[in-house]
């Protein structure tokens, strides 16, 4: 991670956004001062900021990545502590969206801040020119807008707006910090109302809500069509509004209608529905309120039933599965979708036509390039494709025809593009269509390396149905999982063995990396269940041993192996990390050995690797039991770390392993870590353990007995925990004997095979496959 000149940050305003930004700064390991006003009553003058931190410690999903981060936030108030801004290198203002109050605060900040300290506003609506009106030139030079999205830890987008007087060095310092340290992807926006993502997003939501009312669709139908088929999260539009708060809609509308020019297309579609107004008035503001377009009601038998708002009657009724639209909406591409006959096509077009036209109309006013628009929607609204990528998929010329036929505006850039596409691959580089009519390379910031880009110009070195191997430059290869959910199977293990031979002869190092939604959810349970159903025990055993062989071959290969997890890295996905020489993890990594949840135990070396980590931990007590107890506690309860930081506390990561805050920098960082190990590389020594044997297993059994009595553990948990205890304590060994890694692996296989034959474990696997939820038998 590059050294940043920002060593301390002050966030003013401890609302959801301000507090969340402060938490993310702390997550990056940077101390932060969080200030808010002094409450009108009460003796504690810091109560508001303190309350915000206390609330965040209970919020789920958690704004903090770990307890250590929370300790980096210092709280205070703007009357007593504003002077401490002088200690900070960056001040983020995230107070109420009122121009006079913000200007008043800036006037005070001007007096106390050090020259050169960056000041930015998290405003989502107020133009930069108005914010800095009346301030000195020096202040204007150090000022910009940093528009985070909610919640700041989890949303990857940040829009940065620099003013005409902003000092490029100051803006660069802030940009570098939010990119590398806070892990955000920066999109440069112009000083125009609503910036990029919210301007398009608000238009899109309005268009989708209007069309549902106008065309008589149910909320379920609308969300089915405007969700996944359009590459939008499955919440669709109504589900999304429930999530962010229905009461936010009128505010966004008022803000945009007052700041956008009168002839902006949004003005024409902005309208409020009496039904929605009534919902807000009665407290039906979405998930945070009494309910929204959807809510969970208690059914007659006490079970929770999902209900949906009937847009005609305003009453809740049981939610229906919109099967009638699902089939036709999911079929084919976007062009087919908007051309479909009937409800599906009509609605899809009514949402997408105006939205794409609108998105095309705000370049270069809101951002200079089509890439900015696409990035903003992909990162800020989790769309799979940006508006211009969608236009390419439909065909710009076809879209123009449809717009003209519908008497909708055809923005200049759509006229300009003609029969061409907004993106193309030229000379191995992805290029975009500029407003100057020429194509330009899509550039990535330094230190960003994406498999997505590499794939544009190269073929895999090796490939089968479940994995592929790519040359990622500088003599390093990347092993990519390609199966559904990146599930691991025999094919993956086969490719690992092939990759090892190839790297030995032609390359320097290997990185385990991919760009799916998650690193890997573990072994392919579906395949395993198939084998169980036909009682193909020898097949199952071969799969377990094959995985062990492949992972240990990686571990002892004569070259460095770095695993680069992100998102979920569970079960076998966790074990491929544990068996690597080093881990470079994305900060948002949820790693764990969850096998016990399906009635099994880790079978690909996870038990021994966790033991090794806890034995090596210098702060953990010594002796035959402490490491065993800790590994047992973590694995038996299927504990999953909620961040890379927590993964270090749990021992899935070593203290020496790396954490990358920005997802786009993960492959580069992992490759650099691997390269740094190349010179003089020697594979690790094979570990030897001193394990307690049956006496240790007896101690663990006592603990499980007490969990049984507390009803924390089920009867089958006890069986599974017994097998796990057997492995971790070294089976029938004695504390005077040495247990080898090979012996532990054998114990893993034996226990795994005993459990996999147990009908109760099979029932767990079956339920997990069917419902995705663990069976507690």
């Amino acid at each position: 991670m590059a050294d940043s000149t920002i060593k301390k940050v002050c966030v003013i305003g401890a609302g959801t956004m301000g507090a969340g930004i402060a938490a993310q700064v702390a997550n990056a390991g940077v101390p932060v001062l969080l200030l808010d006003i002094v409450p009108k009553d009460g003796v504690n003058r810091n109560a508001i900021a303190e309350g915000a931190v206390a609330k965040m410690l209970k919020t789920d999903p958690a704004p903090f990545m770990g307890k250590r981060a929370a300790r980096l936030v210092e709280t205070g108030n703007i009357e007593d502590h504003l002077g401490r801004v002088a200690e900070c290198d960056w001040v983020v203002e995230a107070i109420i969206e009122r121009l006079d109050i913000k200007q008043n605060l800036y006037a005070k900040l001007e007096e106390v801040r050090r020259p050169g300290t960056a000041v930015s506003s998290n405003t989502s609506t107020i133009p930069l020119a108005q914010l800095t009106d009346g301030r000195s030139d020096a202040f204007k030079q150090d000022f910009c807008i940093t528009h985070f999205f909610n919640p700041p830890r989890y949303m990857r987008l940040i829009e940065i707006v620099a003013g005409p007087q902003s000092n490029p060095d100051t803006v660069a310092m802030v940009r570098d910090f939010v990119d590398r340290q806070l892990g955000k992807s920066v999109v440069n926006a112009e000083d125009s109302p609503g910036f990029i993502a919210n301007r398009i997003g608000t238009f899109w939501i309005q268009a989708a809500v209007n069309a549902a009312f106008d065309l008589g669709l149910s909320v379920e139908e609308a969300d089915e069509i405007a969700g996944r088929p359009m590459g939008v999260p499955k919440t669709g539009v109504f589900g999304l509004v429930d999530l962010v708060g229905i009461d936010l809609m009128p505010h966004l509308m008022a803000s945009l209608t007052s700041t956008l020019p009168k002839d902006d297309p949004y003005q024409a579609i902005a309208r409020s529905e009496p039904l929605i107004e009534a919902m807000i008035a009665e407290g039906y503001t979405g998930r945070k309120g009494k309910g929204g377009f959807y809510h969970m009601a208690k059914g007659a038998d006490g079970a929770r039933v999902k209900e949906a708002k009937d847009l005609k009657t305003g009453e809740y009724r049981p939610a229906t599965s919109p099967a009638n639209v699902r089939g036709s909406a999911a079929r084919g591409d976007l062009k087919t979708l908007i051309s479909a006959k009937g409800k599906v096509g009509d609605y899809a077009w009514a949402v997408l036509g105006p939205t794409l036209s609108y998105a095309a109309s705000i370049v270069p006013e809101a951002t200079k390039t089509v890439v900015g628009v696409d990035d903003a929607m992909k990162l800020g609204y989790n769309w799979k494709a940006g508006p211009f990528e969608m236009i390419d998929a439909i065909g710009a010329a076809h879209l123009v025809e449809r717009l003209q036929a519908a008497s909708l505006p055809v923005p200049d850039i759509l006229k300009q593009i003609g029969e061409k596409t907004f993106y193309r691959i030229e000379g191995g580089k992805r290029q975009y269509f500029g407003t100057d009519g020429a194509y330009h390379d899509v550039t990535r910031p330094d230190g960003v390396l994406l498999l997505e880009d590499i794939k544009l110009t190269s073929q895999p070195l090796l490939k089968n149905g479940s994995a592929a191997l790519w040359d990622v430059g500088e003599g390093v290869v990347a092993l990519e999982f390609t199966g559904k959910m990146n599930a691991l199977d025999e094919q993956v293990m086969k490719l690992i063995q092939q990759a090892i031979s190839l790297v030995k002869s032609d390359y320097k190092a290997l990185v385990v990396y991919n760009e799916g939604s998650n690193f890997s959810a573990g072994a392919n349970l579906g395949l395993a269940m198939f084998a169980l159903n036909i009682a193909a025990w020898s097949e199952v055993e071969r799969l377990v041993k094959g995985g062990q062989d492949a992972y240990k071959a990686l571990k002892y290969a004569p070259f460095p192996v770095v695993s680069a997890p992100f998102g979920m890295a569970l079960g076998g996905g966790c074990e491929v990390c544990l068996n690597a020489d080093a881990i470079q993890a994305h900060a948002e990594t949820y790693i764990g050995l969850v096998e016990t949840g399906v009635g099994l135990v880790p079978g690909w070396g996870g038990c021994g690797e966790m033991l090794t980590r806890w034995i090596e931990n210098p702060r953990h007590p010594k002796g035959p039991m402490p490491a065993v107890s800790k590994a047992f506690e973590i694995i038996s309860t299927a504990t999953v770390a909620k961040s890379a930081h927590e993964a270090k506390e749990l021992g899935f990561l070593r203290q020496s392993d790396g954490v990358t805050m920005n997802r786009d920098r993960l492959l580069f960082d992992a490759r650099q870590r691997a390269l740094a190990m190349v010179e003089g590389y020697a594979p690790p020594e094979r570990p030897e353990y001193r394990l307690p044997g049956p006496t240790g297993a007896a101690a663990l059994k006592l603990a499980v007995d007490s969990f049984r009595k507390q009803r924390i553990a089920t009867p089958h948990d006890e069986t599974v925990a017994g097998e796990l205890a057997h492995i971790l304590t070294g089976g029938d060994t004695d504390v005077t004997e040495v247990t080898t890694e090979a012996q532990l692996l054998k114990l893993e296989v034996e226990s795994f095979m005993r459990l996999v034959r147990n009908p109760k474990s099979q029932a767990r696997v079956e339920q997990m496959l069917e419902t995705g939820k663990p069976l507690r038998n």
Partner: protein
Amino acid sequence: MTDVVIAGYVRSPFHPAHRGALARVRPDDLAANTIRGLIEKTGVKVDDIEDIVMGCAFPEGEQGFNIARLVGLLADLPLNVGGITMNRFCGSSMSAIHYAAGQIAMGAGDAFICAGIESMSRVPMTGFNPMPNPALAKKSAAYLGMGDTAENVAKKYSLSRADQEAFAVASQQKTAAAQAKGAFADEIIPFTLPDGTVIDADGTPRPETTAETLAGLKLAFDQQGSVTAGTSSPLTDGATAVLVCSADYAAANGLKVMAKIKSMAISGCAPEIMGIGPVEATRKALKRAGLTIEDIDIVELNEAFASQSLACIADLGIPLEKINLDGGAIAIGHPLGATGARIVGKAASLLKREGKKYSLSTQCIGGGQGIATILEAQ
């Protein structure tokens, strides 16, 4: 036979493990500070001290290496003063007193420091490396968790959750009242943290406890049982020290005698109901003293759990008003190895304060034992 007397009693403040003010304090430092306090308070000549007898239930980690000897060195006692660590779990430091009494009776010394220590923050209950004998674990309840034994006693004696909670509330109220009167000030040796903070009061009591708050707690050990954290003694960090010497030595050196040891006893019982250990131990001690339970004026009964306390009270027929005048372990805390010396020292000081004649100090011990000490006012 040589009369053996209690000539001084002190303790550290008691604080809840992990979250309390003493969690980051090494147990040897805490014990050394407490012993220095005892020496200052009693004025005993350090050169005359034969031995430090230190009770500790989990003598490993920072409590390992014969902590008694190390504490003597830490407390700058003369090199001739010995040190022995004793373990009888919760009965450890009461056993320390018994051992000293026996040594004195045998003429093997005049003055002993009988101390107890437990940092339950820094050395976990069960220790770092619990390695039970698998065969014994199968055939007996020797390793059964203490909470489970409390549930067993509650079942055997048909003690309702409400009965236990009423007992716990009373303990908290007695401690709160005693704390308000400053009744502990005389026995607590303050401890100064490295940052200069002086810890001079207990952090364990929860004076705000009511029957309602206790009724809202989750069951701690058995989802079909009756014992909660509120009716159990809390995990505690603390140290105690008692000066035990021959009556002659005390008289010759002008020491302030608090009480004379009248009788002592140990008795084993079934491990799964270890909480009733005090019953047989007390009966033996009474018999040896030639007394009946009616003769006893002051009782310090260790409140490991409300259930076992109530069971012992019922079996022995002790009037509630004689029990734990300043509250018990449910409120004050139970640093395992340190508790025995506390309830003997406390009983001695209560005999003086209340102007009574006989006291009984007794406690249950994990694994199935009871221990008892009867004192007579001097």
